[in-house]
């Protein structure tokens, strides 16, 4: 049992190390900016996740205490990683793309990052704004 747990912890750590490395390596290897954004947002979460799992398991198995609070870290990462990615993508769209270089925005005119104050004004007058959102 002990060996199994040990193995599990070790495996998690190795996996975490690999994913962590891949996330950062992708940042260097991938050749376009939007693609580079994929690597860390995914790989590192599992990298960190692996470490956290290993840590929980290790504590439970070898340090004689049960540890859940690593879950908090995971929670925060899951909550924040998409927002971070969203913002960096917006930076990319803002700096590298134009309205023309982007795909159609469904039924709408364009993407939010390319929204100018004039557009906003036009929209504001189109609908009467409610008091609270």
């Amino acid at each position, binding site marked *: 049992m002990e060996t199994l747990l040990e193995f599990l912890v070790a495996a998690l750590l190795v996996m975490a190390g690999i994913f*962590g490395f891949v996330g950062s390596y992708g*940042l*260097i290897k991938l050749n376009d900016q939007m693609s580079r954004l994929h690597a860390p947002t995914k790989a590192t979460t599992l990298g960190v996740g692996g470490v956290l799992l290993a840590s929980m398991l290790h504590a439970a198995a070898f340090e004689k205490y049960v540890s859940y609070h*690593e879950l908090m*870290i995971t929670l925060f990462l899951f909550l924040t990683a998409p927002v971070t990615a969203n913002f*960096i993508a917006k*930076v990319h769209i803002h700096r590298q793309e134009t309205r023309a270089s982007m795909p159609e925005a469904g039924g709408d005119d364009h993407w939010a990052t390319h929204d100018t104050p004039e557009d906003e004004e036009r929209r504001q007058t189109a609908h009467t704004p409610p008091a609270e959102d």
Partner: protein
Amino acid sequence: MIASAATFAFACFALALLMNLWKVVTAPDVADRILALDTMFINAIALMVLYGLALGSEIFFEAAMIIAMLGFVSTVAYARFILRGNIIE
């Protein structure tokens, strides 16, 4: 076994950290820099948790959690700065 695995993970994340730093310094565009810094935060969290695991101590958990929570804030601040100039408007 755990020790070697941990050393391996240490090396991976440390290497990752240095690669991130390299990217922060050399990236052609500011978006990549912010991304690299954000990745650095995440690798740092991993390193810290690993270190706690290696020492068998919980003492580093809070620091890791705080980085997870706050690293995001500075990343967003940098990005907002580029997008809008005003980070609070």
